[in-house]
């Protein structure tokens, strides 16, 4: 099995699945083009996350990550919840395959967006309708794994820290692809010549 027991357990029995109709904050990240999309809904009481629900379109890792993030966030203060990182989620899950690490990015990002949405609403600069916010571009390239060697992408922007391949953003989906390559391994955009 490619996944840890903990990942499989969360995948089989995901916690907090659903929608909160009158949510105080909503966060949506991802894009079906690259595989995953997550929506997080939170209720806030006395600066704490009183309830959290999520919906996920994606693979086993994406579902397990969402479930884990929701469990980690429940009952936490907003400040504590903002400190949930991609790394801590992956660690709590007993690790993720390298090429699935980007899923853990999405989970924490979606939660943080929901919190930011709540804070903005509190400030009275609430956007028109959070649910209808445009679908986010996929996670930044430096948060992904190198699509060629599957190693984590280093801090050096545009160069994979593992295989030193030069990368650039795909104009179609925004994820990392090999510099100068005619097709993108994430969204499948291909220069078709007939």
């Amino acid at each position: 099995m490619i996944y840890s027991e903990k990942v499989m357990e969360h995948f089989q029995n995901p916690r907090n699945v659903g929608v909160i109709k009158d949510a105080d904050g909503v966060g949506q990240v991802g894009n079906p083009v690259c595989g995953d999309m997550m929506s997080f809904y939170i209720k806030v009481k006395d600066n704490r996350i009183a309830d959290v629900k999520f919906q996920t379109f994606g693979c086993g890792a994406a579902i397990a990550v969402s479930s884990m993030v929701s469990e980690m966030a429940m009952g936490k203060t907003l400040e504590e919840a903002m400190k949930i990182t991609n790394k801590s989620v992956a660690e709590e899950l007993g690790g993720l395959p390298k090429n699935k690490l980007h899923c853990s990015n999405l989970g924490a990002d979606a939660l943080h967006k929901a919190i930011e949405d709540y804070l903005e609403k509190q400030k009275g600069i609430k956007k028109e309708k959070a649910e209808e916010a445009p679908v986010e571009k996929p996670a930044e390239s430096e948060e992904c794994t190198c699509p060629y060697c599957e190693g984590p992408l280093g801090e050096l922007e545009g160069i994979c820290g593992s295989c030193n391949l030069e990368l650039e953003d795909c104009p179609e989906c925004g994820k990392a692809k090999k510099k100068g390559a005619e097709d993108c391994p994430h969204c499948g955009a291909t220069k078709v010549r007939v």
Partner: protein
Amino acid sequence: MKRVYLDHIASTPLHPEVLEAMLPYLKGNFGNPQSLHSIGQEALGAVEEAREKVAQLIHAQASEVYFTSSGSESNNFALKGLALAQRDKGAHIVLSAVEHQSVLHSAKSLEKLGFSSSLVPVDKFGMVNPEDIKKAITPETVLVSVMLANSEVGTVQPVQEIAEVCRAADIIFHTDAVAAVGNVPVNVSELGVDALSLAGNQFYGPKGSAALFVKKGIRILPFIDGGIQEGGRRAGTEDVAAIVGLGKAAEISMRDMEKRAEAVRPLRDRLIQGLPQRVDHVFLTGHPEKRLPHHASFCIEFIEGEAMLLNLDMQGIAASSGSACTSKALKASHVLLAMGIDHALAQGSLVFSLIDDTTSEDIDYLLEAFPPVIERLRKMSPLYTKYLEEKEK
């Protein structure tokens, strides 16, 4: 737990008779077919007997069959060997957009050597129009490669018509028939192809056994240099047991192919009809009629393939998917995208491919176990929630 294997396209199981045929060359005769002594000569006899059987399966001459180690190798051998042998005539090749990666990437390698390639589009069924091949051919074209059957969507291409187009233009035509040979009748002279790839683990032979047919008189450069094996075109000590297994699998296919197809076709049809009856927003991918007899492929809207596969696996059902999440490069299937299926729907790709011991009960079990999996994942899906909300409006 009940186990239902519906992943023929990944690999068929080894036929017991094939194993029996292979065993003497794993346990007893270890000879190198190129040795002069009788142990070697016995192994050579087994290799040549297998070549004869593989040739019979596709109605070729034994001397036109080169053994390789995989379908991917056969495709690499064909694309590179045939194109490079004609470098003086031109440097352009024509492929369909739904070819196997081993064909597409061989073309990429050729591009580095100065070739250019054209990808011919397919229709919504994944079907190539021979007219489009004609249009893509230029005076520089030296090779056309279009697969016989697609493993992801099951569509069987009009290879005979495409071969006619190529013959009229005096251009060499290769077909990747890995998904087809051993499962549907293949006759290289009726099809009119110059080269054809096949692989043993698609018809109950061992993994690591495959072959390339190259018509007599067609020039092809050696793929592995350094020995006299395979007519000097693919050097290296032969994997005698695998080759013997391939020969036996070919022999069994000649005997059983029709019977097998007759047995799986009604089961496949029941699956193709039964699943959309039980679940909404399920779409058949590939051609509804012109498809492999054992092949049923779908896109299930609003959910993702890997999550479905994991859930099915927990219930003992083995299938495959072309979703981005199931590929290591996180890339959605180029086949589905070429057919005009949008990215989100392509993520819900699922392929069920039947094997010769698939039973009616297996299909019942799948039809019972699968809808709750879909329902469970849709409940979690923001795309499905959005769909339901819009439907209410």
